[in-house]
């Protein structure tokens, strides 16, 4: 029995090798894995259209609209995109179910931009075991840049640790003797950014921190934490918050007459959905960092990239709210995906998808800040690693300083 199957395997592999050698030239033109044909590329996606994080569901809708635009303009290398997006309600077990459905029943070529750290963590092992790309995941956790252990998973946005390091660098030069109070969301996101900040501050910086205060997303207000932070006598306040709590922290700090050097993380730096509701007068001089253009920022009113963005929204998804940071996020990620698909040409294998995604060289997108470039390699699965600092003045963010890199280990 043993020898029989061995012979059979040998026979089959010989046949395969022969086939590959003889047919090699003919099919070098077009190579497909499941999910790609001469006319179509199937892309899977998982979004929280319902549940606690449903605010982010708009990302999936924008991506769908973008691929509709791509299809209307003739597709990519002559192939139409079929974008299959499922709802996981921000629930990891449901994400696993949907990933299986996409891979095994819909037979997609790869899964693009599934959202959320918990959901992506849940499907990562499965995707890698199946060798199906889990491309450009929509989370800023640091762990997606791990090509050695998870060669089929890749991030997209700057990770939170890099961002934390950039703020640390800034604080070390700006206020080396300051006293820092940090308020952070008690989850992966908050802890990741906190770690970056503390790593960046180093041993000396550790003595600068007078308070590390966490809050839970279930809390109606974070007023009490702000009162506590002020009482420490800190002159630097770092708010590691999601939009709602970001706006609350801006408003409360102003209300209690506290005037620290205020650092607000990028997640909560949208003008339309945070700074404006919190009141422009309360947000003056706040420091943050960004990599994408904020469409609500008047300084981009005549920018060609933003004009294209608006034209796209107008034509393909007019109901979208352009003040919502997620809309720009969906636009930029979908554009990145289209670029990678274009580069893959007619070699639409899963292997080549990863190869092309890991071969971005100084790619600039019209929705990103000038100077921010996407770079990846076989050992670097973190496309965007740069941010630029900015200060809130009047009703807009003023960028300042160079584009900074928070590359880990760099």
């Amino acid at each position, binding site marked *: 029995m043993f020898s029989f199957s061995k012979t059979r395997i040998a026979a089959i592999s010989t046949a395969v090798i022969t086939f590959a050698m003889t047919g090699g030239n003919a099919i070098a033109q077009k190579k497909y894995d499941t999910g790609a044909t001469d006319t179509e590329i199937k892309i899977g996606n998982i979004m929280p259209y*319902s549940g*606690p994080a*449903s*605010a982010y*569901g*708009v990302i999936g809708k924008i991506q769908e609209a973008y691929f509709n635009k791509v299809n209307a303009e003739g597709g990519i290398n002559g192939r139409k995109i079929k974008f299959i997006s499922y709802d996981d309600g921000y629930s990891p077990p449901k994400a696993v179910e949907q990933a299986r459905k996409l891979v095994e029943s819909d037979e997609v070529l790869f899964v693009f931009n599934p959202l959320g750290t918990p959901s992506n963590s849940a499907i990562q092992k499965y995707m890698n075991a199946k060798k199906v790309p889990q491309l450009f995941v929509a989370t800023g956790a640091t762990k997606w840049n791990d090509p050695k252990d998870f060669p089929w998973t890749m991030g997209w946005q700057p990770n939170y640790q890099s961002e934390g390091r950039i703020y640390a660098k800034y604080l070390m030069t700006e206020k080396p003797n300051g006293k820092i109070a940090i308020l952070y969301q*008690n989850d992966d996101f908050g802890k990741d950014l906190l770690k970056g900040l503390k790593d960046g501050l180093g041993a000396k910086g550790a003595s600068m921190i007078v308070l590390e*205060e*966490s*809050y*839970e*997303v*279930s*809390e*109606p*207000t974070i*007023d*009490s*934490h702000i*009162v*506590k932070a002020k*009482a420490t006598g800190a002159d630097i306040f770092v708010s590691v918050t999601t*939009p*709602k709590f970001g*706006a*609350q922290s801006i*408003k409360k700090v102003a*209300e*209690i*007459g506290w005037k620290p050097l205020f650092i607000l993380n990028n997640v909560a730096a949208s003008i*339309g*959905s*945070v700074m*404006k*509701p*919190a*009141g422009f007068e309360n947000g003056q001089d706040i420091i943050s960092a960004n990599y994408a253009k904020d469409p609500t920022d008047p300084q981009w009113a005549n920018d060609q990239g933003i004009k294209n963005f608006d034209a796209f929204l107008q034509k393909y998804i007019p109901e979208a*709210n352009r*003040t*919502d940071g997620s809309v720009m996020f969906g636009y930029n990620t979908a554009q990145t995906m289209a670029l990678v698909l274009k580069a893959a040409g007619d070699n639409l294998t899963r292997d080549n998808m990863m190869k092309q995604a890991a071969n971005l060289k100084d790619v600039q997108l019209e929705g990103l800040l000038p100077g921010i470039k996407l770079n990846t390699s076989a050992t670097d699965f973190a496309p965007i690693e740069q941010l630029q600092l900015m200060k809130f003045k009047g009703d807009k963010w003023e960028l300042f300083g160079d584009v900074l890199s928070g590359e880990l280990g760099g």
Partner: protein
Amino acid sequence: MELFINQVLAGISTGAIYACMALAVVMIYQAIDHLNFAQGEMAMFSTFIAYQLLQWGIPYWWTFPLTLIISFAGGIAIERALFKPLGNAPVLVHVAGFIALFAILNSVAGLTWDWTIKQFPTPFGNAPFLGSQLISTHQAGMIGITFILLILLFVFFRFTRVGLAMRAAAALPESAKLVGINVSWMIALGWGMASGIGAIAGILIAPVVFLEPNMMGGVLVYGFASAVLGGLTSPFGAVMGGFLVGVFENLVGTYIPGVGNELKLPIALALIITVLVLRPGGLFGRTFVQRV
């Protein structure tokens, strides 16, 4: 000491949020003898209606009564359409109904007004109140309105025929029917009033926590806790419960090192359970004795 006073003040102003919500919870409990899990979402929805009216350019002081009337009518409509048919169904069916209503209102609000946070105006302004930067004029106004509501409710339930009839209808429906009270409409009225109080709560809370479809998620848990602590039968208890929970929660977060922040809510809830073990009716509630 300064930190202590500051945290107590901050707790009182957060407590006002819980107290407002707790009042609506008590109101519906008086009417239907259940806790309505969709109470928070109803309040959120009413606040969005107010937001929409303001967007259409209607002045604040017109918007306020208009929203109340719409919410009142909406509450009655929900009862007539959804819960009257379920009248004799077991409690679990009602709970399922509440949860369905919760999900529907939440999603519809998200779909209509999207999920980004909205600024909601306050009629009181945000200046420091009496020189204290810890309580703004808005929060002071909120505390004031909570107490006015409380007095109105007290008078309503104690001295008006309708109020008394409503209490009777909730406590002893059979007997109430026998003395000629239209129990079915009393319940509908209770829904309407709870919805109206919820609208006031929502309108007062929104300027502090910002308006968005999930605005009431956390608030409702605290509202329930406050109502239970103060006694589900007592509007006064609910308001006191709200302030107590607000202050206690802040002090736990500030003074219990290490775990204080993460266990703020569990510790507050543990306190409530302790109170309930000692006084099952809540701090200010009456205990009902059921005759067999």
